[in-house]
């Protein structure tokens, strides 16, 4: 994704969160970090592991019967 696209994405996400558009230095500083966090989240959007295994079953999940997700 190009830098201006990241800027739009970050701006949109932040506006959604704070209810108003952000601009200037605050937005500029956030864009790079939004990109960093977006890259960290990659395995959890398109689950796939370095060894080719899937971290989750391809089937829709069912409750395990004990505890949290």
């Amino acid at each position, binding site marked *: 994704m190009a830098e201006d696209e990241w800027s739009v994405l*970050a701006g949109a*996400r*932040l506006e959604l*969160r*704070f209810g108003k558009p*952000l601009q200037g230095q*605050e*937005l*500029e*500083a*956030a*864009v*790079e*970090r*939004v990109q*960093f*966090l977006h890259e*960290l*989240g*990659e*395995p*959890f*959007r398109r*689950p796939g*592991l*370095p*060894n080719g295994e899937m*971290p*989750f079953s391809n089937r829709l999940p069912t409750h395990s019967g004990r*505890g*949290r*997700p």
Partner: protein
Amino acid sequence: MTEQGLAFLSIGELGRRLRTGELSPLVLAENCLERLERLGPRYNAVVTVTRERALAQAGRAAEELAAGRERGPLHGIPYGAKDLLATSGGIPTTWGFAPLQDQKFDEDAAVIEKLEAAGAVLAAKLSMVELAGGLGYDQPNAAFTGPGINPWNECAWSGGSSCGPGAAVAAGLVPFAIGTETNGSITSPSAMCGISGLRPGFGRVSRRGAMALSWTLDKIGPMTRSARDCGLVLEAISGADPEEASTLPDPFRIDTAASPPGGKWRLAVLHDATETDQPEVRENFLAALDLLREVAEIEQVELPPHPYTETALTIMYAEAGAAFAEFWERGWAGQLAAQETRGMALATQTIPAVEYINALRLRQRLHRELGRWLAPYDAVVTPTLKKVAPGLEERFSSYFGAYRRLPITVAGNLLGWPCITVPNGFGERGLPTAIQFVGRPLSENTVLAIAASFQQRTDWHLRQPPDCG
């Protein structure tokens, strides 16, 4: 005994002298207070010297010990607490962050309460990376107290985020300190400063009154000069807390008889443990393995490949985003010392819930899979860090490259496994290297015993930094 000699005695030896009357708690406290006031600023290690409280506690300990009322091995022993543990009585708790320099709490954190009950003497609140590094940082100057300075080489960093505890113990300012770890903040400064640091398993120690960075990753533990001392402190601070839901029901009790079932420990060494561009780190690790073969069978293994860093950091930053949600509204980003990551406060607000939940789901799976992987062994052994402490002007991203946090360190934090780091020699620029033992859940006694076996065969933990008298 000289003042400096007293400063480097173990908790066990200090306790013996206190109980026999050879040493007064007031003399010991005054010795630490003087060193904290004189040497603390040199290492940027101290935020507040708690002189009044220390002398009151030491006076009480003196009276009780004279009357034959012993509270245990920490009775009369001074310590320092990382400055994210709440302290009452008007003592500030700054979280290392400039806008919070005057923050005060009405109550002590649970761990401070526990240490008070054990008769320990709070001598100082110790410096830390601002907000425990929860909004990121890429260089040592990341607190209003300045960069933590390493007693072994004053041009090097003392580590983070528990930089003050690391330097204060290494320089003999206090016999022990309390640090916290979310993703390496006890083990990393302990390794860089050449001391022994224990990250207890998740739930061993109540976090009530500690700054919340990540509810599912934060841990509290001891930083001392030996594995044995780590056990003494953990015994005093562990235990259930009805007000802190994550705590385990049973307290930790030292098992001095902890020994390997078949006569030798079973250690797993990671196949890439010696991959480093610092030869001393490799040589010291191999020498340590040679010694450990006297007490352990060692087998090479491979850590199953998973996105450990992505999982841990997605969880940590999502939870930090919730913990520090007011940050942006208060206009605090501009007041961070670590300006290079100032955008993180805003960025954490944008992590999708789906990514956070999927990271939690993967962690559940890793609990099962890595639990089976580690089951045949008593611990995994690796160098704690693949490089010695960076210089004060270094950028971590360029100095450490892929080595800032090892996958086993991240996995151990993610799954709440106990880990102890102990010094195993020296490397570049006269800085310490270290070895770590990562154990199965609830196996603190095992990793402590293995580390103690190593320390019985070495004297790295007894070395003192130059010129810190």
